[in-house]
């Protein structure tokens, strides 16, 4: 593979984007790629906008993705997909969680949650909407929605030949292995 691939994971602090970045990177390293990963987050431990960037290929230099260069944008929260859309390569893909977390100005009534986010995304890019929260809830743990999205990411980037279930086992708490593997499979099946 000549070209470096760029994965941009965005969400809200506490959603588990960092863990997904870790699982993805770990599997890519096992598969023999050079990998760089960078977290960008503000001061808040919780509630702020969070992004995690993973770049892989034969040889990777910059740990950060340039605007217009992400091959896939995985948004763990709907509005965050719109915030980061300029980072997506116009030929890239969006995987977006059908899940909204209102930010502080919205909670206070100073701003509104944008209308029609999913429609805008579908109009502008190759977008797959995943009902990750609903799927995770059905599997018994809403927190595993990050792994549902990870499954969709693996499908979207055509990385299905890596043994991800083993990587997931190595990276999550033992008592959540089962639900997370189920969540991963649900994510794989959630996108075409």
């Amino acid at each position, binding site marked *: 593979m000549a070209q470096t691939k760029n994965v941009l994971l965005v969400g*809200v602090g506490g959603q588990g984007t960092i863990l997904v970045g870790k699982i993805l*990177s*770990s599997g890519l*390293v096992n598969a023999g790629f*050079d*990998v*760089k*990963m*960078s*977290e*960008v*987050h*503000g*001061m*808040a*431990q*919780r*509630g*702020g*906008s969070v992004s995690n960037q993973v770049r892989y290929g034969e040889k*990777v*230099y*910059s*740990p*950060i993705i*340039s*605007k*217009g*260069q992400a091959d896939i944008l995985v948004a763990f929260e709907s*509005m*965050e997909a*719109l*915030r980061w*859309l*300029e980072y*997506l*390569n*116009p030929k890239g893909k969006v995987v977006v969680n059908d899940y909204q977390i*209102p*930010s*502080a*100005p*919205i*909670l*206070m*009534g*100073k*701003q*509104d*949650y*944008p*209308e029609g986010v999913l429609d*805008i995304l579908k109009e*502008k*890019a190759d977008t797959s909407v995943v009902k990750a929260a609903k799927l995770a809830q059905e599997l018994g743990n809403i927190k595993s929605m990050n792994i549902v999205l990870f499954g969709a990411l693996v499908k979207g980037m055509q990385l299905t030949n890596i043994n991800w279930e083993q990587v997931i086992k190595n990276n999550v708490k033992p008592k959540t292995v089962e639900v997370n593997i189920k969540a991963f499979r649900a994510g794989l099946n959630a996108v075409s």
Partner: protein
Amino acid sequence: MKQLLTGNEAVVQGAYEAGVTYACAYPGTPSTEILENIAAYKEEITAEWAPNEKTALESSIGACYAGARSLAAMKMVGVNVAADPLFSFSYSGVNGGLVLVSADDPGMHSSQNEQDNRYYAKFAKLAMLEPSNSQECRDMIKAAYEISEKFNTPILFRMTTRVSHSKSLVEAGERTPIEKKPYVKNLQKYDLVPAVSRVLHRKVEERLKDLEQFSNETDINFIEWNDKAIGIISSGVAYEYAREVFGNSASYLKLGFTYPLPMEKIQQFAAQVKTLYVIEELEPYLEEQIKAAGIACIGKEKIPVLGELTPDIIAKVLLNKENSLIAYDDSSVANRPPSLCAGCPHRGFFYALAKRKNIMISGDIGCYGLGGAEPLLAKDMSVCMGASISVGHGAQQTFTKFQDKYRVVATIGDSTFFHTGVNSLMHIAYNQSKTVTCILDNRITGMTGHQENPGTGYTLQGKPTKIVDIPELCKAIGIEHIRIINPNDLTEVNDALDWALSLDEPSVIITRWPCVLKKHSTEDKSEFGDYRTNCDVDLNKCIGCKACIKTGCPALRFDKPIKKVKIDSAQCIGCGVCQQVCPVKAIAKVAK
């Protein structure tokens, strides 16, 4: 086996392999994880949190004088606090090797200014190394200890946020056990009185010449020849960005040993390329020295001096190249600013404080800085760690002198109080301003991610230890009026503020309640009990007045269609602040 490590983790790996036995720091983003990770080597390395960066560096200097390889780590503004010993330490030099890691924050992801600490190496006359990625962090730290001991110099190890916090592959090795060097009393080296320092300054200048020769010879500074039409001199993560943009279409002089600079190597490189670019983040540190040596180059005419550098910026300003982007209107995307957590014990206190009239609120560095955001707006200023109390004092003295109606309330966290706030409180006690100092004791160092401090009862490596008693400490330095309150109880907060503002003398209010995200110690459990519950809104009683929303709690949401407030039970921990501000008593505590 190669591992994916952050730069901070790779520094730890390198320091471990280099035989470091003492490490000390004060937490600060992006440096914090260095000491958190080094602490795991409980057998081999004594790792400690210091109350501030000056004490961290000084104790590392002591360990180095005693003969150990030692490490101090801090964020860039912390080096300002440690600058005093640093300049003198440059004169004495080392016994065991010493590395000071400065983690700079271009882009100010979590800092109050943008500061290029490479100038400290030049100013304090220290050897400097500057890694570009995690592998270099590991390799260069090992080299740093060799250089430190060989040339009798402290090392400034300059990282940036993107080097500290990005992950890349690292090939690691085994620890080489290093014998502690014997300590030999030597007043001519360690006793920095004027007669000694005059002699040592001469030696420092000679050392810099030797180091420059080393800088020219070491392969830490290396050339990659490609097309010679464009030559690029770069260091740190800027090198990775330059490499990303120019690929093999340009030649590179990659600098990893960046003080003193390898001027001979730079001359040779510059002579062979047609156009020379100096690509560096923040200040023109390399460029100034290169231009001063009479070498023509292009740098800050094109590359911005503000903010974090990115490959996009380099491509745009040097190659006039921009990626095509998806055109869309993002004006409807709401902001997502950081905010005090649901159940944060600072919320009740700030809510009550901000309601007061004619108050200047002098703020400080920590989570409680977020109290300045909407809707609380409980902060007027914030300068640097520990400054709230002394800034407040100066303002109060001025208001008092000019009979201005304003009163000053200074707010500071427990860890920040130990850092340098205690010095400022001594200043107040000594000079007797009627400043109200509020120590917001949440039983942990919050913002950097829950580090122990002298008030928590545990050390970095998990040993139970003595606890500094904040009220007793305040008494000991001369504060006579002290109250300890529960900040979630608004009546207590208001009573304490009334009391403090009625006094013509200095007072201290200590709010004592643990951080909502903190893992409770056995001491916390016995003191605060199992208080976590839930609040719920009786929708029949709620009149939609939004009084509770004004507390800024992220668990509360105004539901526009029904004009009522709802509480997210997953976030709520039942602190009860919203319950106290509801005018119609529509909010009640319910079992979790």
